[in-house]
């Protein structure tokens, strides 16, 4: 399982674009990058997953450079309701049966 490093916390303001970067220097060839969002008093929610380049869905975009040693979760025009903890996970989507969640990034959106 590739080790990941992400900021412990971030603050931003409503309406801003927020980018959270995750480092994963020892990512393996078969590893995917997955991000989860966890609101207070709820279980984590899968938000996006990618292998390379760019992935976009209705919630976020995920940017992955060619060397795949980092990734950036981009949240467009955040609102107060985007205040949550965001977890970056890296591993083999076809084989890893023990998923390790780190401490994540605590994102606080200010009015």
């Amino acid at each position, binding site marked *: 399982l590739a080790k990941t490093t992400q900021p412990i916390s971030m603050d931003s303001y409503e309406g801003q674009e927020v980018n959270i970067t995750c480092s994963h220097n020892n990512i393996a060839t078969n590893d995917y990058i997955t991000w989860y969002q966890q609101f207070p008093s709820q279980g984590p929610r899968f938000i996006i997953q990618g292998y390379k380049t760019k992935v976009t869905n209705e919630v976020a975009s995920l940017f992955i450079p060619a060397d795949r040693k980092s990734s950036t979760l981009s949240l467009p025009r955040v609102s107060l309701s985007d205040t949550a903890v965001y977890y970056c996970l890296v591993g083999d*989507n076809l084989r890893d049966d023990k998923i390790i969640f780190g401490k994540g990034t605590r994102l606080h959106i200010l009015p």
Partner: protein
Amino acid sequence: GAGVSQSPSNKVTEKGKDVELRCDPISGHTALYWYRQRLGQGLEFLIYFQGNSAPDKSGLPSDRFSAERTGESVSTLTIQRTQQEDSAVYLCASANTGRGRFYEQYFGPGTRLTVT
């Protein structure tokens, strides 16, 4: 369709009592996971089921913790002789690993356990 459900949502118990927590995964999901999350902390992996078997029990904190899954569906996590340090939110997740999506897990709302 229905998501992952857990019961009870809250449980307060006295130290030394046994508790049983239940998880109903999404229908058809072959993999089921239990995690523990203490207040303000990240998720701690407890156990993983593939079908009815548990290939990885390495996260269970002690022999007071056990889990079973029947019929590739419902799972129960049992904590015997509860201790105050067992107080946490216990989260269950399921995944459709038959399609190779180990990292696409769907979580339930959790059971908040308080041991007094």
